[in-house]
């Protein structure tokens, strides 16, 4: 064996854990309470890679009843549902399904990310509010 590992946790291990915890809290403060791109009305921004071209769809949620958009990006098809208060991915043929499992997002700054499909659904604008924790890498 090249080097003997220390097998009993000590103060330095606690320090590593503390540094990770501080990083987590610092990141949360920076990304969850940062600028949510906006003011004004709540908008859903859908960014995708349609036929190799970066495409962006913006849609105001105010007064929206229920809109279903089927988008094809990077070879995968996602069914995105937008209502006056929420957005979610209803169905997707991507292998991970994380975008579907993310569930509903309702506050400005929240995102649904589907990595295989290269699709990002993000809520921007509105009053900002408490951005919460709904972004998930899919």
């Amino acid at each position, binding site marked *: *064996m*090249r080097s003997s590992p220390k*097998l009993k946790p000590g103060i*330095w291990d606690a320090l*590593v854990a503390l540094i990770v915890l501080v990083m987590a809290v610092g*990141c949360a403060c920076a990304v969850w309470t940062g600028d949510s791109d906006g003011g004004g009305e709540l908008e859903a921004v859908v960014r995708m890679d349609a036929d190799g071209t970066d495409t962006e769809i913006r849609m105001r949620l105010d007064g929206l009843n229920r809109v279903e958009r089927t988008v094809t990006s990077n070879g995968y098809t996602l069914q995105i549902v937008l209502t006056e208060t929420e957005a979610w991915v209803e169905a997707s043929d991507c292998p991970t399904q994380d975008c579907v499992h993310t569930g509903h997002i309702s506050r400005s700054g929240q995102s649904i990310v589907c990595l295989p499909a290269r699709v990002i659904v993000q809520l921007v604008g509105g009053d900002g509010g408490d951005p919460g924790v709904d972004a998930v890498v899919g």
Partner: protein
Amino acid sequence: MKLTTKQLTLCGVLTTLALALSVMENQIPLSAAIPLPGIKLGLANIVTVFALYVLGPVQAMLILVARCILGAVFAGNMNALLFSVMGGVTAMLMMILLSRLPGLSVYGVSIGGAAAHNCGQIAAAIISLGNTAPLYYLPILLGVSLFTGALTGIIAACLFRALAHTNLMRG
């Protein structure tokens, strides 16, 4: 770098074991307990920690890269290769650095590696998408890495204790 037959055999066995653990943990529905999709225990990291101490950093890195490539091939998802390589290599570099600090045990090394793995994967997601939206996931991932890193540290420590008297641990 010259490998003995024993080291080469151990590299092969550890690569296979890491691959098996990686496939196995995909079957564990961790997201049912913690409703955050994409979360993994990082069981294959036990092998990385073990290889780092027993074989050395170069061999541990080779095992890691082989596991990432074979994992992507077997899963038929080459898109995942960038994420597993970036996460794995970032974790490996962090663990090499931390393992050289005299005061740290295998627990601290594992926790640091788990946190670095998540940072690497988020970096890969940002590069891949050209958008910083995946950053929203980083605080949760860092928090979870405390538990997953400690878990892999506990298992790795048990492994070292169990194998302490064997030829395997004497080079």
